[in-house]
């Protein structure tokens, strides 16, 4: 975006038009600089006590940002504002509770830079009821957005030091299973639903601004575990679907897309790929396939759907609804290479090229969960296990769970129901770990290097 207005503003000044020229007599001291931001104030957000809202005014239209930190050395900044204005408000995110933060405002009016004096403000306390977290290690450098299930239902953000730096609760009496940072980086989206027993008719996809000032929701009845957001803002979610089968309602699943204008469209149904007369799940009381995990690849325009009761993962073409392949047990189209372990009642997974990581909840003998990695030969339809990981000491997550592999070969593992998250190095060593106190479990997580939206410094 061109900043012609800045250019024209500066260029329109005459050489002699400098109102800021001052002629000082010998030993003249500082004078009030009208360019400096005025009225700089930080206030704890009324909605989220770990958010500080910083406001200021400028005499000229300007853009700015806030430098801040837990010491006077500051060290962090908010993104540069995109729109020049005279009344400014910026939220400081990712702050610890009950902590003094130092801050100052930097402004740019197109020609001149100015900075406010150093000030400080203290964040508020976390509300009662959030879990206590224990943390060890230094190997994780991202924020973790994750729902909390159990004694309290909430969405929280955990910083690399294992502290809760953001939270949101509501009174829906529903559970939250997945939290994502919105594509525009300004809000958190989560699904308020119920997946045990009958799915809830009043389930919703909820969007909360990161400064907590606004909340909106999209009613999507019968939501289940998971959803994704596409680059254009379209949401795709797993929704329970009931159809008659042999005179009885059979609970299957479908993928519903919610367009930015609110239009909801079913793009796939379990019945598109599977016949209940032919394939059955292993826990019929819960439903037929019990889809519980959803990913989307924009490059190929495909969904990946995990089905717990099938112990399978399907690759689904979004445009046609065709299941390109199925990996796992029921409906499997792969051959597992000799010696490869098989997964059972898996939850989330990650497809990276021709590799797939899977949270295998029940496949390991003994009550321990594990992560399996397969290399997929699509052409030959062969799946070869290339890696596995079991926590030490072992943990068992009977539901949920999510592995994420990084480009550096490290792995992040969320052992949801066990209330444990770990970061592994490329060699499989644990470099970071967080545990909840008993009574709390994690939902599916999203990792984010920053809670601020990525912006260019050249608006």
């Amino acid at each position, binding site marked *: *975006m*061109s*900043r*012609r207005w*800045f*250019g*024209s503003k*500066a*260029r329109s*000044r005459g*050489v*002699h*038009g*400098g109102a*800021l*020229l*001052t*002629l*000082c*007599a*010998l030993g*003249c001291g500082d004078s009030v600089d009208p*360019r400096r931001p005025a009225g700089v104030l930080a206030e704890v957000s009324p909605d989220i006590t770990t958010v500080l809202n910083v406001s200021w005014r400028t005499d000229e239209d300007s853009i700015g*940002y806030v*430098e801040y930190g837990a010491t006077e050395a500051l060290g962090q*900044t*908010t*993104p*540069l504002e995109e729109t020049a204005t005279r009344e400014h408000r910026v939220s400081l995110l990712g702050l610890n509770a009950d902590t003094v933060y130092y801050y100052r405002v*930097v402004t*740019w*009016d*197109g*020609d*001149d*830079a*100015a*900075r406010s004096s150093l000030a400080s403000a203290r964040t508020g306390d976390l509300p009662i009821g959030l879990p206590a977290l224990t943390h060890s290690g230094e190997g994780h450098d991202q924020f973790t957005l994750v729902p909390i299930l159990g004694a309290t239902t909430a969405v929280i953000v955990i910083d690399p030091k294992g502290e809760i730096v953001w939270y949101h609760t509501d009174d829906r009496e529903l559970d939250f299973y997945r939290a994502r940072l919105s594509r525009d980086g300004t809000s958190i989206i989560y699904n308020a639903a119920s997946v045990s027993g009958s799915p809830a008719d009043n389930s919703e996809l909820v969007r909360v601004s990161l400064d907590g000032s606004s909340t909106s929701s999209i009613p999507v009845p019968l939501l289940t575990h998971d959803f994704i957001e596409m680059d254009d803002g379209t949401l795709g979610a797993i929704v329970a679907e009931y159809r008659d089968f042999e005179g009885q309602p059979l609970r299957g699943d479908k993928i519903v897309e919610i367009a930015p204008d609110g239009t909801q469209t079913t793009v796939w149904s379990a019945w598109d790929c599977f016949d209940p007369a032919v394939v059955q799940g292993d826990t019929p009381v819960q439903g037929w396939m019990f889809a519980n995990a959803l990913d989307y690849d924009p490059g190929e325009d495909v969904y990946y759907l995990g089905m717990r009761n099938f112990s399978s993962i399907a690759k689904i073409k979004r445009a046609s609804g065709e299941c390109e392949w199925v990996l796992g047990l029921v409906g499997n189209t792969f051959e597992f290479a000799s010696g490869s372990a098989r997964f059972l009642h898996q939850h989330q997974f990650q497809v990276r090229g021709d590799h797939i990581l899977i949270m295998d909840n029940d496949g390991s003998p003994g009550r321990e969960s594990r992560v399996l990695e397969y290399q997929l030969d699509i052409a030959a339809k062969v799946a070869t296990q290339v890696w596995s990981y079991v926590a030490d000491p072992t943990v068992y997550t009977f539901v949920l769970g999510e592995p994420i592999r990084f480009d550096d070969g490290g792995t992040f593992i969320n052992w949801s129901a066990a209330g444990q998250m770990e970061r592994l190095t490329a060699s499989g060593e644990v470099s970071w770990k967080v545990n909840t106190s008993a009574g709390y479990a994690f939902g599916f997580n999203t990792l984010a290097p*920053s809670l601020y939206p*990525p*912006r*260019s*410094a*050249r*608006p």
Partner: protein
Amino acid sequence: MRSSPSARQWPLRLTPASRSSARRGFWTALALVSSASSTLHAGGYFPGTYGARSLGRAGAFSVKADDLSAATWNPAGLARIEGTLLQLGNRFGYNALSFTRAPTLDWGNLNGGVPPFVEFSEVDNQAPWQGLGPLLGVATSFGLEGWMFAFGAHAPPGVPREQFPIDGGQRYQMVEREVLMIEATASAAYRFSDDFALGLTLVWISVPRLEYELVIDANQFPGEANPVSSELDMRTRLSGSDAFTPSAVLGAWYRPARSLELGLALSVLPASIDADSTLSVVPLSPEIEDSVELRREGVPADDVSLTLPLPLTARAGVRYRHLDGDVERFDLELDVAYESWSRVRRFALETDGLVANLLAQRIDIGSIAVEKHWRDTLGVQLGGDYAVMPEQLTLRGGVFYESAVASPGYTHVDFASGTQLGGSLGASLFVASVEVVLAYQYRHQPQVVVSEGDARVLQETPGSPCREPYTDPALCHPQYLGLGSPPVNGGAFRSHSHLLGVDVMYRF
């Protein structure tokens, strides 16, 4: 035989006997001097004055003009010197200049997509001391009635050298400047009557040494701007000289009444210093091991030319003499000087197709222009002498004002270009035929503060694809549309000088 007291001071009249002995006196040779100066000038490159008596009067000397400095202040004054005058002097100086660059956002070194706020430390001239500013010459009539001829050489006033740290906030303006300049003069004056005289001085300006160094950003990427530092910062140094630049001064002196004198001096020969120079470009980053090769049409070359325009000047004054009988007890002179510094639009470096090669990249250097956009100045000097003990001790003093040669947006560290104020004190002690002159002057430039928005001295970026009118957002950084590169002279400029002049005059 001593001259009469009344004739001792203004002007000094020599007896025939003393005049004869002066002929057998010594003649000074043309001496090398070290100062940057010009003829009548008192601003721009050459703020201030030379000659201890003129210095003691804060430069209010274009009417009195009765020593060898009259060669440039008002050649007509030479005609009132009687006998032969030998003069030798020196000017010592302490020239303090400081600059604190205005804070800016470093668009070239983003931190997480955000330009850091950068504050700069104050930088000072690291070469403030000036030890040599000599003046020497002789004036004699050769026995011709009414005539006076003078030959001399001097170091013009001004700050000869400035040096700032290579990593200071001023680096994109200038790092170092040194100018050695000599003015050799040959003057002739004729006194038509006791009340009227004319004079002419021919000036040979020689610049045996001219050094100018600044840092440029050799970045070639479209849309880039590095207002604070760049990995491709280059230390660019110009070294040159100019053997001869002519100039001339016309002067007139008129006494309409016994106690009133008028003076007028004009420098009307347009001139420029054209220094033949060499250019060197050295990368500042230690990570760049390659050297910069300069070529022209594929052949190694480093010759360039630098043009420094000189102003035309006009100087006029009125002097009141308070006479006690025939003795001039004190005088008071008011001078006004006008100098056409607006001739200095820029320091233009012409490379005539020089190309720099670095890291397999080619940069057409083209012309480098340090924009000045100077303006004409007006100077006012008020000073006078007081004969405490006639023929023994004279005290003098004065004050001066010089308007700023540069508009605020073009204020620059290379020359103190703001308003100048100051005052002087001096004294002459007479011992037989010798006059020892001492003078002190304090010169002050009030702080000039230039906001970055008003600053107009821009970073040199010869390799940048952003070209006039600097409005293409694909090639130019969005924050500097219309400019092309970041302004680098926003900030606070301060300067002051302490000058001490010592002259010895021998009349015979």
